[in-house]
């Protein structure tokens, strides 16, 4: 029998193939194209048609797809219709800020959420558990932009402690810039993640194997760390993968409010200008990242609790 990892990787390749078709088809559905948008006011219809031919927009969709896919496989994401530069450069320039934001957020969220989850799970329905559960539930119900606006109003405008927007410069060398955006992203993710860890801990604590280990005299601390935690981590890791996806693709609100030139900003700009190659390139990179994150999460879970030998 093939190993779980091999099967799971095989599945990921199939997903990747389906995904590339979807990315291409969906972006082609956008109304209007770059030629329309750029040239309507200055050029005659015949000139527009000529430009369209030059950009390859008049080819049948299947041919365009094969051409695009061939280029993508060789590492060429195409040329932006707006800036005229390679799409790969746009990806490279925008992904840095998003990665810094995502990784910094996760570095704070993960340990905190795990700790909170275990604290809540081991005191199921106790006073501490109910207090933290209520707070996290309330926090996760507030939209990001509300938190962002409130934080900016208080810390930047009123107190003047932190910069409200990105004013150029390297994110890494000026951590003050990161504090407010991370604070916004932090709230919801820590809530969702800690609740999953809590649920996992509660389930593992009530499992028969933990009862049995306790009956065989395993001390409480050892029981929590070695018997409960690996099982409790599984739902947490899956939620972490989902959080990773969201952070990479969905930090738009945060990027917009704090004017950080990240991935989501580049993507929205591309859609607005009908810059199809850019949109396709960015979407593809994002989708592959999501695929890899989920693949990694599944492999980690199978390593933690190797119950699934084969995919069903």
């Amino acid at each position, binding site marked *: *029998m093939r190993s779980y990892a091999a099967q799971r990787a095989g599945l990921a390749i199939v997903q990747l193939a389906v995904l590339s078709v979807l990315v291409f088809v969906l972006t082609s559905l956008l109304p209007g194209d770059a030629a329309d948008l750029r040239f309507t006011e200055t050029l005659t219809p015949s000139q527009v048609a000529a430009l369209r031919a030059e950009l390859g927009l008049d080819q049948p969709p299947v041919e365009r797809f094969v051409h695009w896919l061939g280029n993508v496989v060789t590492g060429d994401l195409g040329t932006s219709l707006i800036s005229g530069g390679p799409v790969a450069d746009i990806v490279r320039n925008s992904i840095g800020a998003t990665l810094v934001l995502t990784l910094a957020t996760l570095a704070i969220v993960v340990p905190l959420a795990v700790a909170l989850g275990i604290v809540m799970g081991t005191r199921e329905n106790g006073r501490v558990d109910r207090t933290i559960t209520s707070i996290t539930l309330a926090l996760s119900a507030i939209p990001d932009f509300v938190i962002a606006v409130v934080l900016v109003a208080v810390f930047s405008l009123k107190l003047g402690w932190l910069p409200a927007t990105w004013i150029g410069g390297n994110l890494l060398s000026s951590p003050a810039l990161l504090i407010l955006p991370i604070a916004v992203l932090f709230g919801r993710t820590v809530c969702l993640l800690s609740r999953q860890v809590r649920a996992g801990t509660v389930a593992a604590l009530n499992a*028969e*194997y*933990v*009862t*049995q*280990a*306790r*009956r*065989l*005299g*395993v*001390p409480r601390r*050892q029981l929590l760390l*070695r*018997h409960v935690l*690996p*099982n409790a981590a599984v739902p947490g890791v899956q939620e972490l993968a989902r959080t990773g996806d969201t952070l990479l693709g969905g930090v738009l609100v945060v990027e917009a409010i704090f004017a950080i030139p990240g991935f989501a900003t580049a993507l929205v700009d591309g859609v607005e200008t009908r810059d199809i190659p850019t949109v396709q390139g960015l979407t593809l990179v994002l989708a592959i990242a999501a695929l890899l994150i989920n693949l990694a999460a599944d492999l980690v879970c199978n390593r*933690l*609790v*190797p*119950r699934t*030998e084969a995919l069903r």
Partner: protein
Amino acid sequence: MTLVVRVTGLSATAGDAVLVDGVSFEVVAGEVTALVGVSGSGKTTSALALLGEHGDGVRLAGRVEVAGQLVVDGNGVTAAASTVRGRVVAYMPQHPGSALNPARRIGTTLQELAKLHDGDPREAVRAAQLPGDRATLKRFPHQFSGGQRQRVALAQTLTCRPKVLVLDEPSTGLDSITRLQLVHELRELAATGLGILLLSHDLDLVRALASRVVVLDAGQVIATDVLPPAPDLETAGTSAAGQPLLTAMNLSASLRPRGRDVVLHEADLAVRAGACLGVVGRSGSGKTTLARCLAGLHERYTGTILLDDEPLPVLRKRTRDQHRRVQYVWQEVRGSFDERRPVDQQVARTAQRLRGLTPDQAHAEAVAILARLGVAAITAARPPSRLSGGELQRAALARAVLANPDVLICDEITTALDDHGTALVLDLLTELKDRGTALIWIGHDLRLVAAVADRVLVLDAGRVVEQGPPATITTEPHHELTRRLVTAARIGDPHSPPVLTTDSRSEPRR
């Protein structure tokens, strides 16, 4: 004679409810003491008191002394209780396989326990009859078969080098040959000087092993050193003459499409109205697959199934009348009940759906049949999670009987029942037979099957290896497996100690 456990006047109370009332018993090193009683009689509560363990809101009182340490006194659980867990008393739960952590290699847990209790994992693995090589120890629990998982759990408890081993219903779900092996292994363990406390409703097992017996009922000791008599099983009725009602010819079944993984090979069977066909075999011999084919649940089969000379299609193509005429009760019934609705409503539903009764009529019939099977109306009005395994098994039977079936297939339906419950079930089935219902009774206990059936069919590895009237099968078995089943059926009989040497438990899964 060393006394390792002395329990005197133990009581367990939850609020006003008394779960255990003045129970006393002793366990001696090198011997087996049995706590006997129906489920809910306080066996497990009494045994867990040896560990100082009790349910939420339950108060223990009395005196429990384990290897010289006082675990429970008049004021409840003492501080010393935590020191006896594992090291002095090791407890094996009813389904030990599910007590293994899926995230840990078995060797890791064994090493951990050995370190805690100065045990020797190698010796424990050998005593539990597991291969002790590195590859085995590096496996995860899911890579073992059900039988081997029980051994892994046993190895864990033995690694703690306890003085007392508590076994909670160790024979649940074992076929009779494996049960026989269990008897030998437990004898060997006791011979090493271990005091064993056996909790069981399986009187045959108790007879074969225990030197002291304590009978519990509703939390009180009602007898010591005397076993309640086994109920007389009725002898087989004469088989009714006439045409076969249900016939299967050349029936082969496979697990995967296009005939791969065949689990049943060209079986032929016929059962007449008012007759009972018994099917015996070890676990994995294809008994349940055969039943599922007849019930229409297993669709990957070839061959012919006829009901009254008309072809019987698979379940989803059956008419409502065909649904009614063939009913199937299987072994693992908990999953077949909706968790949120009361059991009596779910039982009554069959009569509404298949016989068109009004809800009130159906409910009245359901309650009557359940009461006859020993499930009180007040119990049946609860959701399934509040019923014991034995009660649910009987509810599942009642649910099928309410359809007024012509053919009733019973697949190991008495595994969770004590002797009294079994007798009630057999009584109902005898009446059904007299009314002309054809029964197919599947079991691994040849003694019981022989008492119920007019004709017995022996399955081994998916093939019918022998069939005939029960008297012939039990007195002149031809096939090797039949001989072993006949021997195993006698484990409660003190005059013919059964002997079995080879380990025939199933191989580990890959």
